[in-house]
């Protein structure tokens, strides 16, 4: 019986140390690595987290896509209220096109351009990223059939 009690003590102590360590890991990692999500209107009003990565979601403005010579793509994202110029060096996902809801992650440059390091579009052409839906709802233009796309 003594052995079992001792065994249990080791187990409890070990688990406590581990849980404490894991909690510390989780807290520091969350502190440093969470990306906030903002809408184009919030960017225009400069309500954005400073000096860190964040995500922006919206619809790609029709006619705004420009392919520069050096592999850089420029386009504008809108929540139908405000537009944000986005710059992205890389190959865009297949579902990226005018009027499509997309999410971009990156940083805001001092000149107001969003420099994306990642542009995400989704599996499914009828799917709209949840953040984009929410931001369209905030702007009051969301329609339930998913056609809150003024440019189409």
């Amino acid at each position: 019986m003594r052995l079992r009690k001792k065994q249990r003590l080791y187990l409890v102590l070990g688990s406590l140390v581990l849980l404490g360590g894991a909690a510390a890991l989780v807290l520091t990692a969350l502190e440093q690595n969470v990306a906030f999500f903002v809408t184009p209107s919030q960017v225009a009003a400069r309500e954005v987290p400073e000096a860190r990565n964040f995500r922006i979601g919206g619809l790609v403005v029709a006619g705004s896509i420009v392919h520069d010579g050096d592999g850089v793509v420029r386009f504008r994202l809108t929540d139908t209220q405000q537009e944000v110029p986005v710059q992205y060096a890389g190959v865009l996902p297949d579902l990226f096109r005018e009027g499509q809801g997309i999410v971009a992650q990156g940083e805001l440059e001092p000149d107001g351009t969003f420099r994306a390091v990642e542009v995400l579009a989704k599996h499914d052409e009828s799917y709209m990223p949840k953040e984009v839906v929410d931001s369209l709802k905030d702007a009051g233009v969301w329609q339930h059939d998913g056609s809150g796309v003024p440019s189409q």
Partner: protein
Amino acid sequence: MIPELGHLALVLALALALLQGTLPLWSAARGDPVGMRLAVSGAVGQFVMVTLAFGALTWAYVASDFSVANVATNSHSAKPLIYKISGVWGNHEGSLLLWVWILAIFGAAVAGLGANLPLPFKARVLAVQGLIGAGFLAFVLFTSNPFLRLDPAPSDGNGLNPILQDPGLAMHPPMLYLGYVGLSTAFSFAMAALIEGRVDAAWARWLRPWVLVAWAALTFGIALGSWWAYYTLGWGGWWFWDPVENASFMPWLAATALLHSAVVVEKRDTLKAWTILLAILSFALSLLGTFLVRSGVLTSVHAFASDPTRGVFILALLVVAIGGAFAMFAWRAPMLRPGGSFAPISRESGLLLNNVLLATAVGTVLLGTLYPLFLDTVGGPKISVGPPYFDATFVPLMVPLLLAMPVGSLLAWKRGDLPGVLQRLRLAFLAALLAAGLALLLLGWQHLGAALGFGLALWLVLGALVDLAERIALFRVAPAQSLRRLRGLPRSALGVALAHAGVGLLVLGITGATALREERIAALAVGEATALGSVQVRLVEVHQEQGPNYVATVGEFQAERDGEEVHRIRSEKRFFPVEGMPTTKPGILTSPWADHYYVLGDQAADGRWAVRLYREPLVVWIWWGAAVTGLGGLVSLSDRRLRVGAPTPARRRLPVGEGMAA
């Protein structure tokens, strides 16, 4: 007509599942064998009915019956046959029908193969399976019926999302579901044991083959998914810590822990309540995964359009199943008698460390996956938790686990001899250290992490080999005798060594692909070249080609070193006129050393093409490592002592592996 028959079969299956889920429980409590045997007939009947339903939907797809709404929305007559068939589960309704079908297969398998299970226990296991089946059949019938008709029927369908027109769709979801749903058997075994209030070595031995099947399938399924995401552009590469990926990874972590703790129950008759808890948790995480994927509450690269009422239904199922299981656990687990004790340094402690670290890892992944949802629900800011969070929490938990793995599997039961084990692992450790040092020398200090990763990979592979060598007493007895011992070794011992070595290969691949990856983004005119690592990559030509149901723009790349051709790779952009969508097929040249991964992008106004070129060293070992690990599970499964139908433990030919096999 056939779709209506399918619908009818589903309704009958639901009735059978309800019967199977209730009456046998009652009969088992009263000791009535007739009622208990009903569970077996119910499980087989349910399997037959769901098979008919699945066959009916498949027929509707193959015959392109567009009067069925599901077929009209997701298929097209001009689609290749393989995508007509795999299109059956390329959509919400069909994939749930597949889920239910696999559940019915497992139910029938327990009914048919579990000849050695005592009848009351078997009846209770099958009853719990029946209740799960009833819940999901109701879900399919009431919220996601795949057999709804369209009137008038359209002349042709909308087609399948071109990104899903890939062999990956034919293999990944069925394999993954085999794993997800297979864990339902662990859940049912745990619930039945709680009802009876008894967990012993025999229970663990009955449980293990089912967990092994599910775990191996989940391993292959996740690996296939990772590979598919790697060669599909825009899905974030081989692992993105995306919520949907996490949803499949958490049950895998829990099932891995379960597999190890079940060994302790079997060999040492202890850690019983914990093992039951893990069995419940594994399936609970499977259900949670189904909920996350199918409700669309989380933003994911892999998200599909979804419907909130379905989310509510699955959430209700989740609450009932998990809540019920945990209540049952709280009520009955204290009745389980604790078993043998063990010293802090022992095989049991090693396996416990494995369990505690894996469970903590599940916790951190769960937190990171659900935290954005939680914040959003309580009205906090919208955030996303990305790969950096998971890298920062998961890696520090896995490193001690992997470091301890070779040591733990060499420790003896009850009381281990740590200095002795370390002595036996001395050479492996030195070799790993040497490999890390060599890597550091070649790569430089900025790649310290990579060097340590390579050392860890070698440590794991060599550790697994030392484990095998110790079992067959290699170099301590005559080679012929070692060979004889090898042949007499239980399959499960071989399986363990394979699975552990596979993890080493996986670490090798992950290290190479994350630390040594090279990337080049450029705009190239036809004939121009750019540097990638030690080669020059030239865009040789771009032309159009006609595919079966698409038009392709093909870019031919040529890699050159000192003006000599090293390899040629073609990358395609395909346009699907039916769906009006483009897809990109990256050109990939795989070798054991490195993958070359070239992507043709859009054409700029000046006529140059955007290209993205990657060199991914050792990346292929990620999937080979996972495959070897899963194969280890299958080899273990073939162990005769675990054979599902074996009525009694087989007579051992040699005393060698006795008590050592894990």
